[in-house]
């Protein structure tokens, strides 16, 4: 599955400044590994020591928060767009 990932500004130093990258992954867990394979060091920023996505990062697949889907097991399809957005805002 080839998906498009939107990278937030603080993580663009891992992607040579690219705001959007393409990846092959069947679910969110695999996506994190695929990103790490292409952009070494990015996984430690996306996940905590236990490999869980950091609680202050929100992941969206085609505009839907993955917590309304299957969290890290959320399956991806060709052409999906995944956004990674820092969570602390608003109120």
């Amino acid at each position, binding site marked *: 599955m080839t998906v498009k990932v939107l990278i*937030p*500004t*603080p993580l663009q130093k891992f992607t040579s400044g690219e705001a959007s990258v393409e990846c092959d992954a069947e679910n969110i867990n695999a996506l994190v590994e695929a990103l790490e394979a292409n952009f070494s060091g990015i996984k430690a*920023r996306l996940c*905590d020591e236990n490999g869980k996505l*950091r*609680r*202050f*990062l*929100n992941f*969206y697949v085609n505009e839907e*928060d993955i*917590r*309304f889907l299957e969290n890290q097991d959320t399956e991806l399809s060709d052409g999906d767009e995944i956004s990674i*957005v*820092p*969570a*602390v*805002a*608003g*109120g």
Partner: protein
Amino acid sequence: MVQATLSTARSALKGLRCRECGETYDLAAKHVCEDVCFGPLEVDYDYDYIKQVVSRETIEAGPNSIWRYRAFLPVETDNVIDVGTGMTPLLQANRLAKRLGLKKLYIKNDAVNMPTLSFKDRVVSVALSRARELGFSTVSCASTGNLANSTAAIAAHAGLDCCVFIPSDLEAGKVLGTVVYNPTVMAVKGNYDQVNRLCSEVANSHGWGFVNINLRPYYSEGSKTLGYEVIEQLGWELPDHVVAPLASGSLFTKIHKGFNEFVKTGLVEEKPVRFSGAQAEGCSPISQAFKEGRDFITPVKPNTIAKSIAIGNPADGIYALEQARKTNGNIEDVTDAEIIEGIKLLAETEGIFTETAGGTTIAVLKKLVEAGKIGRDETTVAFITGNGLKTQESMAGATSAPLLIEPKLASFEQALEQSHSL
């Protein structure tokens, strides 16, 4: 760029620090710990210094606004925006107390805060003062209504350009209370969480000061002034129990921080204060986590008339949860019908017309007292954060219509008799 006047006094501000991992940052327009864990950044103060320069007397001699607590607020210059925000009444609510069966109940009434009749004027006065210091010429926000009112009004006063983002389905009073100041208003087809996410993306690209995004560490500190004022208005004492609405959870945690700071700097004697939070059942992610004993928040899609607190994905939710548990408080939610009853109860007993968020707070206060979760002898403060004239739609059909009469004595007498027999 607006030139700021540098303060002659040394500032108590040390820097920004991540609440989660402790990483430190400069005092810039930055709200997340982007080098490590993406946790929220908070302003770090030198409390020893504050303790040296502040006393009850210096505070009492200050302006009749939030700026009497300036030493505790995240600004570095004397050039603050003071539009008379804060120092709202702390009303002893004897009739409501009697109705509920409490001995001592106070209402902190930010329904009459200045200039736009909600607690948001506190956070915006601080955020825009800081925005000016940081050189921003355009300010912005993601709002459920009250914040947009406040940002637009105070930006107008300060001569800052303003662009605000709101969900497109807000109450007419909230919309008019923004557009009248003539900012650019983006009415987003979506709920608040979607507005917020859009703004998080815009904040990085336009060089604007978003009060509740990149200026959030400064902005949120404004809510501490609610805590300071309550202490001062209680005669330099802490209450026993606090009941406040929960949207993002920020207000709730900052009232607590305000109390702690006054203890830490010797301005008030320490004692345990219980913190209880109020949510609408149709948007109760923090209440659900509290009741289920979870230490994480599962976001929800809001469906309630309490639009001003309808945040399904609350940024400070986990901290509010932790605080209610640690202080032996509770988090409770109420239905839309109970919210309307809460609005009417406060109006009929105390003469305060609050909006849906305030109705939520009063309804939860009632529910907690009835459940024995607030003791009869506890000195309790309920925080009313917004004004009922802004959410008139919610009261449709909930109140009786005026008696329409002819300009004649007989018509009056007849109507009066009918009203008595109702």
